[in-house]
């Protein structure tokens, strides 16, 4: 057992966990942040993507010890109060989700994609970048639309800040 200390969605947290505990299990089982999902056991599906120090990471592939001291953001931490993150709003407005299970990971990956390609996103790039996130419901058509829409919204939001 080890004690880990990290920041999750802006709050300092600590937990006493088995050394083999994965970050996704810390989030779901110990911190009750169940928006981060588990869809596979081979780090393929991306349902568990969170941000660690601003980068999209599959939290099923991270031991909690590796996240010690890190700044973690989950799907629960991206809206500002009642105001949705532009990516969340774009997924809703473009029907970018159906069952909702892959959605948190998709949104967290997509935010990172927009950050990494500021201003230079097109359909082919979005499709290529989403390779690590699997959706079985949407055929990706509206997810791609959502990400492209959000890229514009995020640029506007950034300009306003």
């Amino acid at each position, binding site marked *: 057992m080890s004690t880990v200390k990290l920041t999750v969605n802006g709050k300092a947290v600590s937990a006493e966990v*088995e050394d*083999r505990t994965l970050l996704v299990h810390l989030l*779901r089982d110990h911190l*009750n*942040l*169940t*928006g*981060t*999902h*588990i*869809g*596979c*056991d*081979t780090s*393929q*599906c991306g*349902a568990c993507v969170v941000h660690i120090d601003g980068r999209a990471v599959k939290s099923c592939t991270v031991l909690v010890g590796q996240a010690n001291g890190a700044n973690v953001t*989950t*799907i*629960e931490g991206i*809206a500002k109060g009642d105001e*949705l993150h532009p990516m*969340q709003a774009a*997924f*809703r*407005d473009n*029907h970018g*989700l*159906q*069952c*909702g*299970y*892959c*959605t*948190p990971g998709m*949104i967290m990956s997509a935010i990172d994609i927009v950050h990494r390609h500021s201003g230079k996103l097109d*359909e*082919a790039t*979005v*499709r*290529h970048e*989403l*390779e690590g*996130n*699997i*959706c*079985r*419901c*949407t*055929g*990706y*058509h*509206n*997810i*791609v639309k959502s990400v492209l829409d959000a890229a514009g919204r995020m640029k506007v939001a950034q300009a306003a800040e």
Partner: protein
Amino acid sequence: MGVEGIGASVVRKEDRRFITGKGRYVDDIKLQGMTYAHFIRTPHAHAKVKSIDSAAAMKMPGVVGVLTGKELVDDKIGNLICGWAITSKDGTPMKMGAWPAMAPETVRFVGQAVAVVIAETRNQAKDAAEAVVVDYEELPAAADIRAAIKPGAPQLHPEAPGNVVYDWALGDEAAVKDAFAKAANIVTLELTNNRLVPNAMEPRSAIAEYNDAEEHFTLYTTSQNPHVARLVLSAFYNVAQEHKLRVIAPDVGGGFGSKIYIYPEEMVALWASKKVRRPVKWTGDRTEAFLTDAHGRDHVSKAEMAFDKDNKILGLRVKTHANFGAYMSLFSSAVPTYLYVTLLSGQYVIPAIYAEVMGVYTNTTPVDAYRGAGRPEASYLLERMMETAARQLKVDPGELRRKNFITQFPYQTPVIMAYDIGDFGASLDAALKAIDYAGFPARKAKAKSEGKLRGIGFSCYIEACGIAPSKAVGSLGAGVGLWESAEIRVNPVGTIEVLTGSHSHGQGHETTFAQLISERLGVPISQVQIVHGDTDKVQFGMGTYGSRSIAVGGTAIIKAMEKVEAKAKKIASHLLEASEGDIIIENGEFKVTGTDKSIALPMVALAAYTAHNLPDGMEPGLKETAFYDPTNFTFPAGAYICELEVDSATGKTSFVNFVAADDFGRLINPMIVEGQVHGGLAQGIGQALLEGAVYDSNGQLVTASFMDYTMPRADDLPSFKLNHTPTLCPGNPLGVKGCGEAGAIGASAAVINAITDAIGNNKLEMPATPDRVWRAIHAKA
């Protein structure tokens, strides 16, 4: 149409919780004192279980219990059931072996559970499972259809000699023989419909809680049909009495058919919660999903079609072998019979059809309904046949289809179905226009000049949805009726709850069903709450599958709504001192036509509940229920055309364009409908290009992870161009047909027809991987 009524693409009410991480799936739920189950599964495809030694495991930290199949037998827990009885052509009933939830004696597919460890934590259960010693005596396995039916094949169940479950036929054999005798041309085709793994993104999960003082169970489960689960768990599995069992299916992360069935793990969790007197949670991992979720498709077929000298179809003869896996799953028997052969007339006038289906046991995961269920297999066979015929007869594939289209409705096919309405020519025209078919030869020539092989492929599908008229399916062997129920509660303050037996696991019912109410009453959808997925709340329901929710569940809502409106009008007319016949409902108000007198819905509702001033003899309250049993199936249909390029050096396929023209009848929320089509197309394209469950000859599932089984990723798929050519369904008041499965039914033939057109070789099986396509190109050369 109101702004949120029928035809409005309003954004989904349910989305906010999903995009903010506030969805509530089964695995998100924790109960006080909850334990965790981990199943011990056979690594062998066929073996005797000689002994199970759990002594060491019982001493491991946190272990609460180890339970085996023997204890299930001791507790008289029932075997899993198959709910549709099929009779072979010799008049004998289908031949089934028993399927116990944990095998006490014999295991018949890799991954079948033999025992379960229950412990304080998930990791403790997994650790202890490593310490359970199971002694197996391996038996030879039959891993596919050919291996299972050859002489001397390993025998799976003593009840089914030669591993044949049934040998069934439908149609007029003599009429087909006559048709072929007078044919000018006969086209033949052999094909395989590849086995698929549904892979809803949320793995199956169950949490069971037993209250011994009340002798009452609660089961949270990933189900598409919680009432059916309760019925089966009580009436057949004998785990709990129906009135002492509450089944809750909260947010469910996709189903595609795979969450219809009541699997061993859910049943064992429920039973175990009483054995250990603690809540028990089981959540499958992806490997378990690959090994134990019911697979789909897996047919091997030979087909022949007879044409006259004018290229009119005279007859169709089909022989199909269907793989059921090691046990007969809940609806499995119906899939390659009444959900497959009944659609073999497609969109065409085919005077004579005869199809034989042999259902076969193999040492593989059980196979059951997966998105489309029988109809994709029918559509794939028929649409590849039409394309093959067009090439052999040297006619345009669109024109050959058009020449044979059914144009008069209603139309009785030779295989049970009576199509009520459709306009197949309109869908084909729309698709041809959308893809600029006239410009294709020039595009193909240009691609050729650039060293690329370009092809175009058609698929004109039809499906039977709105499952199903209870009497009709009952006469065909179904063990249940397939109606739906609804209850509408207008609360005293005028907000509305709709309790539906349909279950949403991605379909957007919370929005679409609210739009039905908004359309009728003119209230905003924010005033309407859709309640589903809980047997303690919803009176009863048959659940969601077979594209049935809007046609059957939606109609039940309309029927209940009519009763609510009738009573509310009586109250309004009483309060307004007007004649009931003069009351109209508009924008949430009851108005006396031709006057300025009106009363708002909340005031009518309040009057219904205060009951101070109701018409003489009227009961208080404003709540009505309805059960709706459809009179016929609905028949969504459409035309898909795929244009693609093949790289002859690598065999890789790249989409140029994929267009769809669908007839779903009236669209309630076009945005949601199109989302359903996108997802269906992705699964159909996935089957055509990427997906396939592969077993080795020992019955090991080689493709048991996302590393080995190719799920469609975003960059495997094109954006889709959708068109709608609706004809309103005359069989229900909404004129709707259903849209959930169409894409998966129609897409795969369009893709394979396009590739075979591009490469000039018709011998190509799914999934058409670059390796297979490359070989097909070179086989021809």
